[in-house]
């Protein structure tokens, strides 16, 4: 069971209120799509500079596995307060602990509400990924 203390997007990001700020990360499902459980397949991560203003839905970074590049998007608008520099050097953190140590950016949000209808609770997110599993 994934954590129920945050909201999820259909593009497999999560957002979590953490005091006055919001943490953004990607889910285990997103990580597994890229590396199929082989944490060494994650090879590079490009993260934004602190201070950058992000709009809702904006791409703020990119992650590369040995066979694919994927965008990192924020579902919440805000200013980048901090990036998790430890994952730049140790991408395996994203595979081992995507929901805690694998947070990617900390934002000062324009709104602290996570009531956006585009954001899902964990139960709805798990229904979504169950439907996304390939049938063949």
């Amino acid at each position, binding site marked *: 069971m994934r954590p129920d203390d945050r909201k999820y997007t259909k593009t497999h990001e999560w957002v979590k209120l953490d005091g006055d700020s919001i943490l953004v990360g990607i889910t285990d499902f997103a990580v597994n*799509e890229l590396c199929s459980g082989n944490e060494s*397949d994650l090879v590079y991560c*490009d993260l934004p500079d602190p201070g950058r203003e992000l709009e809702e839905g904006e791409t703020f970074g990119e992650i590369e596995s040995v*066979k694919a590049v994927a*965008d990192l998007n924020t579902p919440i608008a805000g200013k980048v307060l901090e990036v998790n520099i430890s994952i730049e050097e140790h991408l395996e953190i994203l595979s081992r602990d995507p929901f805690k140590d694998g947070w990617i950016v900390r934002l000062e949000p324009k709104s602290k509400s996570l009531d956006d209808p585009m954001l899902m609770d964990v139960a709805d997110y798990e229904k979504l990924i169950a439907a996304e599993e390939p049938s063949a």
Partner: protein
Amino acid sequence: MPETWRLLTTWDGEPGFNMALDEALFLHGGSHPTLRFYTWKPTALSLGYFQKIASVPQGQRAALCVRRLTGGGAIYHSDELTFSISAPLEHPLYRGEVKGSYERIHAALAQAFAEFDVDAKMRGESSLSSDSEDSVMCFHHSTPLDLVWGARKGVGSAQRRSSGRVLHHGSIKFKATPFEPGVAGLHEHVPELAPAELALCIQRHFAERFCLAFTPTEIQPGEASHVRERAPFFTSEEFVASR
């Protein structure tokens, strides 16, 4: 009922044109996937999206460099057939793990190559004689998902996944190039094999294996406009030397 895919062939395209057209198909391709076959004129070296240009000495020797939207190592686009697939990420060929999508696409390519008596397989866990740790070229590094024959890599491939869409690049070598010695090439098996003949064979196997009907098309006006605007960017110092 076969699923309709768009088919686009553009022979001897300039490097910037080739990359800009793939970008147009990736960003604005619509709900029907597009299979595109192309070749390059002049030949050019393409850098992987994240590659540092300073780490690619071949960039000094190549007449022209572009940077791809897809990752991985550098490729010298000479004596090859290049293909791209642009599709919604929810398409059954691409939905889910990246690994599964390569398995499906490479199985179809291997079937096509078998027509030329090429026994192509995914590499699996064995290493290749074409691997070279010191090289930054795509064809000198392999993963278990790569399509190989004769213990050498013969197809370079990479994907970009963004905003619900996927761009899949594939580069199929006819023979080794000055920058990519020791790689597998289809001309070892069929010396006169032409890009158009190989493209037709691959198209046929994709159609059979995935139950597809291809509709040959021209470049659409919106795509042509995108290419005119963006082609210079892909060969520009701003992009090529951005890392």
